[in-house]
Structure formats: structure tokens, C-alpha cells
């Protein structure tokens, strides 16, 4: 009986040690940011889409302005 009680106490003690060890592992800070790749992907994709939109808008504007200026100087009319 005494032996069984002693074994139970040892088991309980071992469990406590394991729980403490697990807690210690959980509290170790993760090295680096696990989400940095997601943040990077979001910002890069946004930058690419906005850059494309701005580039095409300004290029179309430049083309239209030049074409209008050329046609007006050709005497095709007034704008």
C-alpha cells in the first residue's frame, strides 16, 4: 500500500514536471515573425496592382493629350 502510494506520488510529481516543461516550451518566444510572408505578399500585390493602374492611367493620358495636340495643330479642328 505504501509502495503504491509512493508510486502515485512519483507519477504525480513526474506529471507536474512534464507540465512545467511544456509551459516552459510554450513560453519560449518564436524567433522571427511567422506571418511576415503574408504581410509581405499583401503589400507587394497591392503595390503591383496600384502601380499597374497608375502607369496605364498616366500612359493613356499622355497618349490622348499628344494625339489631340497633334490633330489640332494639323488643322483638324479646335478642342
Amino acid at each position, binding site marked *: 500500500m505504501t509502495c503504491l502510494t509512493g508510486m502515485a506520488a512519483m507519477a504525480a510529481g513526474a506529471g507536474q514536471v512534464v507540465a512545467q516543461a511544456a509551459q516552459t516550451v510554450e513560453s519560449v518566444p518564436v524567433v522571427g*515573425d*511567422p*506571418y*511576415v510572408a*503574408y*504581410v509581405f*505578399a*499583401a*503589400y507587394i*500585390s*497591392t503595390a503591383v*496592382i*496600384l502601380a*499597374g*493602374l*497608375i502607369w*496605364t*492611367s*498616366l500612359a*493613356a*493620358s499622355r497618349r*490622348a*493629350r499628344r*494625339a*489631340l495636340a497633334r*490633330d*489640332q495643330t494639323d488643322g*483638324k*479642328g479646335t*478642342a
Partner: protein
Amino acid sequence: MSIWRYANPAEFMRITAPLVVPLWVLAGLLIAAGIGWGLSVPADYQQGSTVKIIFLHVPAAMLAINTYALMAVASVIGLVRRHHVSFLIAKAAAPIGAAFTAIAIITGAVWGQPIWNTWWEWDARLTSVLIMFFFYLGYMALWAAIEDPDKAADLSAVLCLVGVIFAFLARYAVRFWTTLHQDSSLSAVEAGQRIDDAFRTPLYLCMVAFYVLFFAILLVRARTEIRLRRLRALHVAQGAYA
């Protein structure tokens, strides 16, 4: 002084000319400040650093829906009052709205993978935003497919109005159905403040920055459309007198 004088293309070009460069400068400054601030906020206790994605996702999603609303209003004005500038503003806004919708969908997916454990879900809001994106594409395709600009303007405006229901659903789906996407974090709710000031203030700055950028691009595109219309008129006149 009537607001309808702005519907005159020459008047519109004259009034907007001095606004273009200041808007671009302001947009650049605000974007730099907003994004810089957004990237420097601390990690959220639940979302970690993915919280930094909201500074792109929320303004882009707002603009995606509000641009469609602007197009719908411009289309109604164009159809009722026959103002070409209204049609051209709707046409100019469509690619911008589509771009912001694409940004909202992509950044939402990139945020959803680590937080929801899925890139995509057929959730009410996500699905209605995707359908709205297809309406943007369809609207642009219809403008491009019809040669007669007046007929293209009318038919595209009707298509735009048909798609309004999905812009409405994209905005309010989270209130009608309880699905995966959470309700708005910024709206006044009975539960109180849902977002900490550390994130709220830079988010507001990013929203203002995106709106200024939107108007800068919109002005450039609308002015381009007016120039192209003038050019077409010149060519038609030249053909008539040749």
C-alpha cells in the same frame, strides 16, 4: 450657380486642371505616411502581424464598393439627363474600382489563410464582392465591345445598374447573414469599440490616403476619356468634310 455646369466637358476640364497635380502630391504623401505608420504598429494579441494587412484591405474594400456606387449614380444621371461627362466618369471609374476590388480580394485571402485557415470561403460577403468584381469586368468589356460610344454608354449604364444589388450585398451581407466574414470593425456598435486606437488612427489615415489616390486617378482617367471623345469628334468632322 447650377451643379450641372460641370457636366459641360470644357468646363469640367477647366475646373479640374489645377487639381490634378496637387491631388497626386497629396496622395503620395498620405500613402507614404499611412503605410509607414501601418507597418510600424505593434502586433495584435490575436492576429499577430497580419493585422497590418487591414491597412490595405479595409480601404480597398470600401473603395471597391463605393466606386461601384459612384458608377451607379453617374450612370443614372447619364441615362436621365444625357450628360456625357457622367457616362465618362463612370467609365473612368470602372478600372479603378476593379483594381481596388482585386486588392480587397487578394489581401483578404492572404489575411484569411493564417487567421481563418482558408484562402477562400463561399461566404456571403466574399461571394458578393467576387460577383461585383465580375460586373466591373463585364462593364469594361461592354464599353470596349460596342463601337458606337453613345450606345456603349447606354448599355453599360444599364449593366452597371443591374450589378448594384451585388455592391449593396457586398456592403450589407454581413448584417443579413451570419457567415464567416465578421461585421464591420469601424461602425458604431452596441458592443462598443472593436478596434484599438493603435490600429484605428493609422487605418483612418490609410482610408483618407486611398480616397485621395482614387480621386487623383479618377481625374486623370476622366480627363483622358474627354480628350479621346474630342479626338473622335475631330476625326468624324474631318471625315465629314473630306
